[in-house]
């Protein structure tokens, strides 16, 4: 099975050499053997009242089907049905077409499909004298309701978020974009989990090469299980060695819809509320969906704050170390004096101090996310009082470092999607501690080179090439958020069919 790389191999394929017979009992035995020691599978045998020839067996998993539907629309009509033509050859066809009330019926004789059908929550109907079966859709399982995503809050904007059911998620997107051009393509990934994955794009807007590339990369996945879209993200992303995201993820259908309208491709994955969008550029980390719902001036200012916060959160510790240890002449005298006082009696060098505090903050942050809510306040008490205040009073850490760390930490929360800032920050501090401001500048240049070199599905991460000269048109949704009546085009190299609105203004 391992050699077949390009096609998704399911673990039920190994039963495919078994053929169903025309004997009902034999077929039941075959399936019972496959499902040995699985007690959730129910084999319900019944016969037609009026015709002895019709003997059936419904096979299903108790917890995954809509029981009443199955009883009322499958078992009841078959038992009550009056099969007049006794000598009818294809009774299964009669049942499929004239007896069962169900929207979705599939007729098959392939054993792996039957197994999958049962496992997915369908009801499989076996009939004597037939080597084929009916797979009837009776799926019903419990899903979480549509709630506001906890990770992406908005003040203004739709409150609905994806849940774990891919069908719900698709319906949420469909309701946003009512267009026949909106295409959904299913794939099944995971030899054991057989997770349904859905690729979603707007035909005529998304670029074909990108769609093809997404399909190709998804087809190349050969893994036993996909439990979260993170698996897919990591398996198909560009630059797998770097900590920066090259595939976007969101829990909000409105965000997915806006990305689709800009020509991106979305991948939904069953069992996770996170939709993936690709290609993903650095600028998206600074964009929030609320930018587009609020006044454009306020949105632009907010975006500006996010840029500043990014600079602060990556650079302030490094600049502090560089200024304190190498370039003291650049600090105003009064500040120098007060820092010098604060540093008196502190046993560690500034770098060690700074690194200690940065790491402590990250530990606190991680503790805050992992800790159960009822005892969550303990983290803030320990963090703020014990580590902050007491450490300064005991002269283990100097007060300016606490301020620097706090500023750094708070600024990181403005761009929650830039998870890699911690790594950037540490590298900046290390370089600054070796070479001062020179080292800091060196590391900034290095980071810039890394960003400029990165690609996401062929799109440059910084949009540094391919968009032509840096004109106002290209800056409308990057540096600022231009008013909607000015954004007449889609992003240049991600989408085709650039025209977005007819502007009469």
């Amino acid at each position, binding site marked *: 099975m391992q050699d077949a790389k390009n096609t998704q191999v399911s673990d039920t394929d190994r039963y495919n050499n078994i053929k169903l017979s025309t004997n009902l009992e034999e077929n039941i035995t075959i399936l019972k053997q496959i499902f040995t020691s699985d007690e959730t599978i129910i084999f319900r045998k019944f016969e037609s009242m009026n015709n002895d020839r019709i003997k059936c067996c419904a096979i299903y998993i108790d917890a995954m089907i809509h029981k009443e539907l199955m009883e009322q629309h499958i078992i009841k009509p078959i038992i009550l049905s009056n099969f007049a033509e006794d000598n009818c050859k294809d009774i299964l066809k009669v049942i499929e077409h004239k007896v069962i009330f169900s929207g979705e019926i599939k007729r098959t004789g392939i054993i792996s499909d039957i197994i999958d059908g049962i496992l997915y929550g369908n009801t499989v109907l076996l009939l004597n004298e037939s080597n084929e079966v009916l797979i009837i859709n009776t799926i019903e399982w419990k899903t979480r309701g549509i709630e506001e995503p906890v990770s992406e809050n908005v003040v203004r904007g739709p409150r609905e978020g994806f849940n774990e059911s891919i069908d719900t998620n698709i319906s949420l997107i469909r309701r946003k974009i009512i267009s026949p051009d909106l295409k959904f393509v299913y794939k099944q990934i995971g030899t054991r989990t057989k997770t349904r994955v859905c690729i979603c794009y707007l035909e005529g807007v998304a670029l074909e090469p990108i769609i093809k590339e997404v399909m190709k990369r998804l087809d190349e996945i050969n893994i036993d299980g996909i439990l979260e879209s993170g698996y897919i993200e990591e398996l198909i992303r560009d630059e797998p060695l770097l900590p920066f995201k090259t595939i976007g993820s969101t829990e909000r259908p409105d965000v997915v819809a806006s990305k689709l309208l800009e020509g991106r491709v979305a991948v939904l994955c069953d069992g996770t509320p996170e939709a993936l969008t690709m290609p993903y550029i650095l600028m998206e980390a600074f964009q929030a969906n609320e930018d587009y719902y609020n006044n454009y001036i306020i949105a632009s200012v907010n975006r500006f704050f996010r840029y500043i916060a990014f600079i602060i959160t990556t650079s302030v510790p490094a600049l502090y170390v560089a200024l*304190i*240890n*190498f370039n003291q002449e650049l600090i105003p005298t009064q500040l120098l004096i007060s820092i010098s006082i604060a540093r*008196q009696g*502190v046993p560690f060098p*500034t770098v060690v101090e700074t690194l200690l505090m940065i790491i402590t903050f990250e530990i606190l942050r991680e503790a805050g996310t992992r800790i159960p809510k009822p005892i969550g306040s303990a983290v803030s008490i320990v963090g703020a009082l014990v580590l902050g205040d007491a450490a300064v009073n005991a*002269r283990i850490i100097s007060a300016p470092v606490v301020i620097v760390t706090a500023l750094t930490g708070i600024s990181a929360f403005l761009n929650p999607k830039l998870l890699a800032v911690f790594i950037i920050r540490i590298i900046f501090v290390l370089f600054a501690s*070796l*070479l001062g401001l020179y080292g800091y500048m060196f590391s900034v240049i290095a980071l810039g080179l890394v960003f400029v070199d990165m690609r996401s599905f062929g799109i440059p991460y910084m949009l540094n090439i391919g968009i032509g000269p840096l004109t106002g048109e290209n800056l409308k949704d990057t540096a600022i958020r231009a008013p909607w009546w000015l954004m007449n085009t889609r992003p240049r190299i991600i989408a085709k069919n650039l025209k977005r609105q007819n502007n009469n203004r």
Partner: protein
Amino acid sequence: MKKFKKLILYFLIFCSLFINSGCWNYREMEDSAIVTAAAIDKHKDKYVLTLEMLRPSPGFKESQVETVVFSDDGKTIFEAARKIIRRAGRKPYWNHNMAIIFSKSIAQEGIAPALDWFRRDSETRSTVSVFISKDGFAKDIIMQSLVTTRRIVGIELNDTMKNQGISLRYPRVDLRHFRSTISSENISATAPFVGLEVKHGKTDILVSGTAVFKGDKLVGSLNDYETFPYLIIEEKVKKGLIVAENVGEQSSNVALEIFNIKKQLNFSSDQDRYIIKGYFNFTTAIDEISGTDDVIDEKMRAALIQKEEHEMKIRLEEVVKKVQTQYNADIFGFGRIIEMQNPKLWKSMGENSDAIFDKINFQAEVKIHIKGSGRQSKPIKVGK
């Protein structure tokens, strides 16, 4: 092997980052002592360097800054600075030095040798303010910080310099400017005087008046009343105060606040006569009437203006005359004006450009414009 070579290459490139990257040394701030003021005296043929340095003293709740003063001598200033480590325990950190005070005797002998290290060394700052001690040792001024522990002489002197543009009773000179004016052919250097004055049982550090240099030697001084017209001629003064005395029948004193001075200096030569004509246009407002005369009244105002224009003219001309006759040091930068307005003449002077200064006939023309009278239109009326 090829891979290995490549690895070595990368390693070497990475190493060169550290080797070829200029001045880098990791230094903890508390390891060096921040110098806030330095005084240089000369004892016999040795320099005596006195430094005011900060010593932060960590307290349990609140930390404080104390100053310490150390003094040591050496054949050169650098030697003295290094010898001070014996006493202070830490290396003096010069980047935040705010004042250098040279003793009067060094200035009289020639200040250039004592300046050299401050300009040459990479750690000292060229924006530091330069002072000349008015009398006695320069270190006496720094010693004032020992009298009360919270007093930081360097910061006090620095604040005085920051507000020079309002006070206008002493020039503002930093090390770079001072050095360049000393070496310059077309202008002479000046520096503020700093001295001690005991008043009401306490000692003030008083910055007042101008030290006049010819070359690198101190040749004389201007008091703080003479400094103001000097600054008007030499610098771009935008603020200040004119006090008109004995105006009107009740001889009130009137303070005119200056808002702007438009200045133009024109050089003209007529055979052997060199004339510099200065046009000074004052925009002022009456800010204080110390008396009962209604000087805002049109007639009185005209009289006030006339009187003040005349007095200012005399003040300006007198200070030039004084410097010309007594010191012969071109602190007004007349040489620069001649060089700009008549470069041919300046070139032809060559070595003798020095001699031209006392031949210059300076004529001032003052116009005073009063644009307002503050928030009051009349002097305070005294009820009967």
